[in-house]
């Protein structure tokens, strides 16, 4: 159980790393500024939800990624305690992650 869980969190943390940088990159290209008052208000709300707000997409995904990293580290520490490091490493390798 520990090896599979550790590998799952490692994999998910890496996936969120990718999605977060992709979101940051896309935010520069979208150009939602059209200038008229309706667009300006829409842009304000759009930006708030994506980046400014405490519960914005970037913030929530960042927190989730940090949590997955911490879960992986806790499970890796447990694996050491239960002599399951080797099984955990092979579970990681199965998903293309070098420990």
């Amino acid at each position, binding site marked *: 159980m520990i090896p599979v869980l550790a590998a799952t969190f490692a994999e998910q943390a890496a996936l969120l790393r990718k999605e977060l940088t992709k979101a940051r990159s896309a935010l520069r290209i979208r150009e939602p500024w059209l200038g008229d008052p309706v667009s300006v208000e829409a842009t304000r709300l759009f930006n708030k939800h994506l*980046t400014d707000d405490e519960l914005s997409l970037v913030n929530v995904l960042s927190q989730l990624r940090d949590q997955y990293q911490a879960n992986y580290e806790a499970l890796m520490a447990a694996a050491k305690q239960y002599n399951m490091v080797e099984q955990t490493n092979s579970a990681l390798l199965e998903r293309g992650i070098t420990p």
Partner: protein
Amino acid sequence: MNHRRITALLISLTAAASVTACGPSEDPLPGPTLPAPSTTRAFPARPKTISLKDVDPCQLLTDQQLEQLTYGKNRLPDKGSRLGEAQCSVGNDFGPMPRLGSLISLVISEDITTWLTPERQQGLEGTRQISIAGYPALEITGKLTKDDCQVVVDVADGQYLDVLAAPNHGRGASPEPYCVEAKRVAEMVMATLLAKQ
């Protein structure tokens, strides 16, 4: 009606003139090695053209380079939002702090000068001309997210390398450390690209 006809005539004349003007410049010139200076492209000359077509962005950082960056070897490929774009995400997921990540994108459907247009500039905080491995490049900071930085490198007309660096644990306060990282990654990617030529 008459006025419209004159306008149409003028447009077709201009089009015809520009077609004939384009003609001779497309002939391959055997002599000079320098790229023909374009009149519309206000950007410094590059040492030589590198095509990014059919290049795998996940092959552009060697295992040794990833180690130097304290990144893991878990390279995640993806498709970008622009036509024909290829992306690869790399980063430090479980190594020592500070943890950073980079997204390498190979853009083949847009010229680097697009970043200097007013439409694109509206979403940006700043654009600075820099040089990466002797190639003209731009360091770009965004308005929406302050804790990341992008470096784009001019490698060919209508093609550029794009490296975006961002925190991979927590959030950052300013773009500076990510600009340093993006430049570092871009230099390494260019070194690999140039070695493949």
